């Protein structure tokens, strides 16, 4: 048990180390300073308070979106629309925030967050309903809705919500009243922590400690059995799509009311995609997602800091994140297994040769 835990920690650590060594080797061969890169990674993500602050700032959106994605994946729904759901959530909260116009923050802020969660959920349910009612593949529909949301944000920030400050050449929205902001531009504050802690707790409770959580995981694994057990799969599906969209919408509101204070066209373009990685690396569990989000948040902070202290081109830094993502889910099985063990080996431990998991999106039974 304990050995398993230790291995659970050591494995990702060793994988990350391998990835870093691999990339450092490339840097070294090309003549970049390896020590500067290592220093930069640490200085940018952990070793100073401001670096830690940066890490947390980038953890928050990954965490909130990753939690929602994890729940959806657990139920067997490949909802990859978090990016778009975050955008519509952010827009909804911004509209409420601008409407607030001096009204009491205790009224406006909660209203804005509720609006964001609802907007995200609605955006997600658009794909969800098509899936649940018609069986339309939600990968396709949720991804397409991302593109639509990107354009909606682009339109609103250069149209109805556009900032009237200055000459207005940037596709930036009006700013939210400073009184409504829940953090400064550092993006780290007590309210944001409370929101994150609540999100982790709600997800953990939903998944582990409620019947709905049990139903979510069983519907995802075997929908036929779920039907025979009287589980309302459509209902569970609605909850799941709504929850994951709501989480992403919440992330959008935190961004708008927290570090950003206003919206810009195409902000955080990669975060939805990284959140999928975070959810999967986190093993679709609340705590796992928290750890994975912290890790990828730190990586993001580091990669923003590196160009300040090294001469590496941005692409060289992106290479590091790519290689880490490439290896992060590899389990430490030695590459060269002995195919033909000596006959009558006295000791054992063999499993079937092709014990690999099927990688296709298939349920354990095909729905009838």
């Amino acid at each position: 048990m304990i050995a398993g835990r230790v291995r659970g920690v050591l494995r990702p650590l060793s994988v990350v180390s391998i990835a870093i060594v691999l990339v450092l080797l490339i840097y070294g061969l090309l003549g970049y300073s390896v020590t500067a890169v290592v220093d930069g990674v640490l200085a940018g993500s952990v070793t100073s308070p401001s670096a830690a602050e940066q890490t947390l700032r980038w953890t928050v959106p990954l965490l909130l979106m990753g939690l929602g994605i994890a729940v959806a994946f657990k139920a067997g729904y490949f909802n990859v629309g978090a990016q778009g759901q975050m955008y519509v959530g952010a827009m909804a909260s911004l509209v409420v925030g601008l409407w607030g116009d001096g009204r009491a923050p205790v009224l406006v802020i909660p209203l804005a967050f509720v609006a964001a969660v609802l907007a995200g959920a609605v955006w997600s349910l658009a794909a969800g309903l098509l899936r649940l009612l018609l069986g339309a593949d939600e990968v396709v529909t949720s991804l397409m809705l991302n593109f639509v949301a990107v354009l909606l944000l682009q339109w609103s920030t250069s149209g109805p919500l556009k900032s009237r400050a200055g000459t207005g050449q940037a596709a930036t929205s009006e700013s939210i009243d400073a009184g409504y902001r829940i953090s400064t531009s550092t993006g780290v504050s007590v309210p944001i922590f409370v929101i994150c802690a609540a999100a982790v707790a709600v997800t953990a409770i939903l998944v582990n400690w409620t019947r709905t959580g049990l139903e979510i995981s069983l519907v995802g694994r075997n929908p036929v059995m779920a039907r025979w057990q009287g589980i309302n799969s459509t209902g569970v599906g609605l909850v799941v799509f709504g929850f994951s969209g709501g989480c992403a919408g919440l992330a959008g509101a935190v961004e708008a009311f927290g570090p950003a204070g206003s919206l810009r066209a195409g902000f955080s373009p990669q975060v939805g995609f990284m959140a999928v990685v975070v959810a999967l690396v986190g093993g679709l569990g609340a705590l796992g997602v928290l750890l994975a989000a912290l890790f990828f948040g730190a990586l993001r902070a580091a990669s923003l800091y590196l160009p300040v202290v090294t001469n590496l081109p941005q692409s060289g830094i992106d290479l590091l994140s790519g290689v880490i993502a490439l290896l992060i889910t590899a389990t430490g099985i030695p590459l060269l297994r002995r195919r033909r063990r000596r006959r009558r080996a006295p000791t054992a431990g063999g499993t079937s040769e092709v014990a690999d998991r099927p990688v296709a999106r298939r349920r354990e039974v095909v729905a009838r």
Partner: protein
Amino acid sequence: MSILDAQDGPAGARTRAEAAVTLDCEDLAVRFGSFSALDGVSASWRGGAVNVVVGQNGAGKTTLARVVGGLQEPVAGRVRVDEAELPWGSVSGARQRGVELVHQHFSLPREFTVAQALELFSSAAGAAKLFSRRALRVRAAAALARTGVEVDPDAKIGSLPVESVQALEITRALVSQPRVLILDEPTAVLPPPGITALFERVRELADSGICLLLVLHKLSEVYEIADTVTVLRDGRLVLPPTDPGEVSRQDLAELIVGQATPDPPKVAPPPEGAPVVLRATALASRASGHDAAIDLPGLEIAAGEIVGIAGVEGNGQRSLVEALIGVAPLDDGQVWLDGVEITGASVRKRRSLGLRAIPFDRNVEGVSRSGSLWENHAVLRRSTDRWWLARRRQRQRCRNDLDRWNVRYRSEQQPAGDLSGGNVQKLILARELNEGVRFIVAAHPTRGLDLGAATAVRSAMATATGSGTAMLLVSADLDELFLLSHRIVVLCGGRPTGVFTAPFDRAAIGWAMTAGEPS
């Protein structure tokens, strides 16, 4: 016409002794983690005979079959066919040397058509050669004709009834002219006439010199067909291949179970004046998959009563069960449970009123194979359950129930797919036959279960009805129906063609099962 005539051609004339193949296993060992599924199994089976392998659920029969078939790599040991050693864990290697394995859980892809599936398993040369659709169909039709299976070559496997799939599995194994043929529990899903037909075929195959290995559970079947019988227990060989004439039924049963076999269950006499638990009028529902639509004038089951449904598979059993459970809608008719109308009620509502189900296919409708035991157990909501999930209590409850049912498991956290089929069935029973049960719909509850397990399951069902539960028992096993039922309704083409009360008349029931059909 012999099935092998067409394939063997001139060689079909060879005598049994000449053609006889031998299969030798030496010191086979298979381990899953620290668990030994097979341990030092050595045995030698000769062709030309029907070799039967028996053993409790989880004894290692399937594992043995898989090792020989190349699907499972052993940690030690060797397998030889006619002195030629098989490579470890290579299905294609085993198939090249003439070993074919027919799984109990079918291996034909549901998404393929019959013709495509047969082509997939073909071992003829020219895998890259283009074929026309017609050639494919003609080839499949020829193979089907040889084995006397009547299905449309263009039908999807998934749309066929189990019997046909079973027959197809054997057809696809025979297409490549096997020298060793292993059938893992081929009788489990077959109705009695199907078993008779299968045994005829098996006998013919054995006569042609093939080395046949047959995994069976029912002793009556063993004595009916076996030339040799081999017994596995807990992964060890406890009886090397032996002429069944040399072992008494009693001894064989003890060898299998490791102790004296339990007594058959005592079913309480049919209740007098007990309240009606399930009442249905004029039931009509659409066909479910390949199963017939049902048209049932009425059905009443009283507390403590067991009503058996007999019939050849595909005659409305599934439609009836699905309609009662509520997973398929009714077209017409009304249903009451304990006086409460449940005609249009949801599955959940029905379950909360005490309706329980033992489904047809435990791996599909019964459990989530990747879900843990306790999750599979906790999924049934009890009256005391709230919206939250008391994990610790649920796990405790699961352990208690599993222990009470003598399920062989390591931990309640292991996935249900790790259990052997018999133990999965017990897990389902442990879940369903629990507090609040009023009416049980049991479909083939002992299918694939070993002697001891089957008896235990039957006893448990008898006990449950003894305390006032009503039961509808669907079974392909007439002996089981006779043993448990108070009344038997025979379904044919979705209509009741006879209602019988004990003592049952086997001939009359058999006649009713085929009534209304041309042949």
